[in-house]
């Protein structure tokens, strides 16, 4: 108190008009910019995003720039080890693996994105209708969901690949048909959760229509969750294609995918001379899935920073304890 008094204290009143009450107080926090900020502050998220972007760029440009065609065989240079000429070596018929891997990544990425997005959108629309309408509509849609969940997706897959031929589009359609149920159920649940919230009620009282409310008022509220689950289903779709390739129902040749490449590589997994045929596609597909998966995790952390804070503190506490233990010693 005494020290304070030594400073000249200026008791002249401040004109309330000049003083902006909101100026010093906390700036109002907007949701999404804040999420982005948190996301990009996370180095892991940056790394994952970097990997994803790098893969997308390589998938687009590497085959364009490469001096080899992905489907051009060269019977004089079969099973070539990785070298400067062929970064990932050549396969059993002398095709350049570098080009093939990135052409395969194209297909895998496309299938990953579209295969995650399409069933999701279809499921979201159906789920929204189901949740919003309720009653018998809901009943019927949910029963159809249950039934379709029980029918093995192999049947749709083969059927669609038969009709459409093994192309990326066919894979996406097949995934849309066999995967929309999960997203529909999820979305329905969300709609039900928000249907009777106050803000929805308010919008309804103002005369907003059903779909408008769903898309203008409810959707933004669940956008975060959607982003996280989408990030999670991209690797799922890539895996599904890889699994179908293992069964023998993938993208048709000469087009290829990472799933195709890694499954055909697994046959020569044991041969030192062909190990690179397995190694590179497997690494690329694993990295891709890892990046999407971790990015999804980071996004979740960014959307809900509580968990991250918890972790931060837990680590802090342990560090403190360790320091104390050291100090005692």
């Amino acid at each position: 108190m005494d020290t304070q008094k030594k400073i000249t204290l200026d008791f002249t009143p401040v004109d309330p008009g000049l003083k902006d009450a909101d100026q010093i107080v906390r700036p109002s926090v907007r949701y999404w910019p804040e999420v982005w900020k948190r996301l990009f502050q996370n180095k892991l998220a940056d790394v994952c995003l970097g990997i994803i972007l790098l893969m997308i760029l390589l998938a687009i440009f590497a085959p364009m720039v490469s001096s080899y065609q992905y489907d051009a065989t060269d019977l004089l240079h079969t099973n070539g080890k990785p070298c400067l000429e062929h970064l990932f070596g050549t396969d059993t018929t002398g095709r350049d693996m570098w080009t093939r891997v990135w052409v395969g990544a194209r297909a895998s990425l496309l299938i990953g994105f579209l295969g995650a997005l399409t069933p999701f959108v279809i499921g979201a629309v159906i789920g929204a209708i189901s949740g919003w309408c309720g009653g018998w509509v809901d009943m019927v849609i949910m029963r159809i969901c249950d039934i379709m969940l029980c029918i093995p997706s192999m049947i749709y897959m083969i059927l669609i690949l038969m009709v459409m031929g093994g192309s990326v589009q066919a894979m996406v359609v097949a995934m849309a048909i066999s995967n929309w149920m999960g997203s529909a159920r999820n979305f329905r649940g969300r709609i039900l959760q928000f249907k009777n919230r106050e803000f929805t009620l308010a919008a309804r009282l103002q005369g907003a229509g059903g779909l408008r409310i769903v898309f203008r008022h409810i959707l933004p509220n669940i956008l975060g969750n959607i982003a996280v689950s989408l990030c999670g289903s991209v690797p799922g779709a890539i895996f599904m294609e890889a699994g179908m390739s293992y069964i023998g129902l993938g993208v048709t040749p000469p087009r290829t995918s990472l799933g195709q490449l890694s499954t055909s590589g697994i046959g020569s997994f044991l041969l030192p001379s062909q190990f690179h045929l397995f190694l590179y596609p497997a690494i690329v597909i694993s990295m891709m899935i890892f990046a999407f998966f971790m990015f999804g995790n980071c996004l979740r952390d960014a959307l809900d920073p509580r968990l991250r804070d918890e972790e931060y503190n837990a680590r802090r506490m342990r560090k403190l304890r360790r320091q104390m233990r050291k100090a005692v010693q």
Partner: protein
Amino acid sequence: MAKYICKRLLISLATIWLIATACFFLIRLLPGNPFLVANPLDMTNAERLMDYYGLNDPLWEQYLRFLGNLAHLDFGYSLAHAGRSVNEVIALYFPVTAQLAIQAMLFGIPTGILLGILSSYRRGSGLDVSAQMLTILTTAIPSYVLAAIFQLLFSVTLGWFPAGGWASMKYTVLPTLCLSLGLVAGYCRSMRTLMLEVGQQDYLRTAKAKGLSDLRIIFFHQIRNALLPLLTNMGLEIAGLLMGSYVIERIFSVPGLGKYFVTSINELDYTMALGLVVFQACVVVAANFLVDLLYGVVDPRVKLD
């Protein structure tokens, strides 16, 4: 309760019937002839067999026959593997798949949950980081790659376990491990998140305010509540596991149903595929039913009606 069970049973039957019907017609949409496999030139023989199995009859007649047999729980004989009855295949190989699935669940789910609990309790520690790494690894590496790595590591290099076959417990180790790693990763991840979510609930603070010890709070309040949501997905998961995994069964030469499932559709083995689909539908419906019942028992907030 009895009324609820009756109602659910009726719905289940209707569901199974719908699935069977849908699959019956879907499978017939697949192009090809089931008898033109090994000797593609023998059309006459194929036609003879089509007649013999009644596949040239009008579709609705075949459908009615199929429903009739279904009512007797008789799935008929395989088209591709003469003499093999579908019922027998299920009776012989479902136990194998079930054993593998149960072993994988008995190992995978508790391990996953335990790891999840530990890593949520010691967030950010070495254990947590390694658990997360395991999760990422098993999620990012395709299962066939992982299986091959295991074979190479544990069979060829170390010689601990056989690389394939099905004779004694020793043979089940690697496929079980492969199957359960996914479970461990999934349950660890879910449990960790759920534990952290429940950890922020007010009632844990209440428990703390009562002066309870950390262990008691974690066991009696946190874990109990975190486990409940895990139950909901278990139904489909158990059913999925019980139908076997094509990849694992093929790589480890396990005589399970999963392989039949894929090959029968590929081979256009109508009777086998339909029989297995209906069987799977029953398993899924039953598993969901049981899980719902269990949920009603375990979670007092859920009312069965």
